[in-house]
């Protein structure tokens, strides 16, 4: 049976402002408290909270997301994970004050799902960053090929032959993959 808090995941997928407002009303205060208690500001808390929701959305849109614990606990898990990453980058102290009372019902599957969400978002960010470093012709061709058009249609749009478009796509993908692999983040992300 579906967890009742799955409605918040649906609200993210459907951009339902009323249910999303309920989510903020119920869960934002605890996240804010956790971040303020651990060297963060309210702006940090706002960024982490929004980022966490976007990472849930990005994972959920692939159709592979089923909440098995309360949303509050799940959000807390992701926000804590993200905040630890920020503190690591800032080289300040680690999270020490956390309030996980009542969260002992989080199962291994939820930990994995939370980790997947964060990983998925970091992968997407790295891909977007590397894509932006590429030349315009590659960027255009790749974006068109990911827009749902067939390679035949991409070729027609770019006024090139089908064989050229296909060859060019594999060259552009080779460039993108080389850039991604050269990043120090590459090995820490599951592909």
């Amino acid at each position, binding site marked *: 049976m579906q967890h009742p808090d799955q409605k918040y995941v649906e*609200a*993210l997928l*459907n*951009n*339902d*402002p*009323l*249910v*999303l*407002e309920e989510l*903020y*009303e119920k869960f*934002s205060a605890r996240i*804010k408290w956790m971040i303020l208690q651990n060297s963060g*500001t*309210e*702006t940090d*808390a*706002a*960024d982490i*909270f*929004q980022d966490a*929701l*976007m990472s849930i*959305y*990005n994972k959920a*849109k*692939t159709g592979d997301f089923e909440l098995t614990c309360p949303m509050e606990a799940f959000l807390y898990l992701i926000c804590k994970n993200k905040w630890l990453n920020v503190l690591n980058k800032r080289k300040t102290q680690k999270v020490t004050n956390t309030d996980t009372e009542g969260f002992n019902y989080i199962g291994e599957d939820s930990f994995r799902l939370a980790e997947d969400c964060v990983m*998925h978002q970091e*992968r*997407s960010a790295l*891909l*977007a960053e590397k*894509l932006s470093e590429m030349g315009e012709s590659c960027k255009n061709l*790749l*974006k068109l090929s*990911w*827009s*749902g058009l067939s*390679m035949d249609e991409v070729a027609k749009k770019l006024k090139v032959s089908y064989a050229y478009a*296909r*060859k060019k*796509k*594999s*060259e552009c*993908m*080779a460039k*993108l*993959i080389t850039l*991604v692999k050269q990043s120090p983040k590459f090995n820490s992300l599951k*592909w």
Partner: protein
Amino acid sequence: MNDNFEKIESYLNGSMTAEEKSRFEKELAENNELQQLFNLYGTINTEMYNAEKYSDREAALKNTLSQLNGKYFKEPSAPVIPMRQKNSFPRRMMAVAAGLILILVAYFAFFSNRNTPTRLADQYVKQELMHLSQTMDGAKDSLQQGIAAYNNKEYEKALQLFEAVYATHPDNSDALRYVGTVYLVTKEYDKALEKFDDLAAKKELFSNAGPFLKAVTLLQRNSTGDKAAAKAILEEIVEDKQEGSTAAEQWLKSW
């Protein structure tokens, strides 16, 4: 190396012959490095396809979340547009100018006998629809945010908010009315008519502004046959004492 990329692309594209396909699959099973490259290629393709496919929705969601962030966190990460800026001299000047324009419009409307239904509809849009009242209760805050955006003439943002509310709450007729109103003031008359038709079809409403707004839109569009269609609607509104019947009665006198 590039040869491998070409093979992967052809395989995923379905452009290999059966023989090439089975040779490639055999190679995949035996060559670990090729297998890893194949997985990476596939992951990137899928993730970027999804990113492109959902980019509009993602932007709309970010917009909603930024607004909620502004409300629930003191120092918002994204700026929240204030509904009114206090002590803003240009704004006050604009208000004075708007007041003068209103007086002139009223003067013109009162003393001129040249009021046509089209002109009356135009005046109605300018006087009644350019500013929406914040009458919703607290629970419907997204509508209020939409109204604030609308009153700031940020029509695109307002439309996104109203459409999002209506998509998830099809019983919210206010959201539908506001969607239509955005289309009306941005002169997308065909879309406005579609929305007001949907609103008019909601028979369960005690008071329904759909038909009146449809007549206003037809008069604004003013294509062939629009004026006659608007007249028929206004007559029906008066006859059934529907919402807008007082204005409809006056407008019909000027026909």
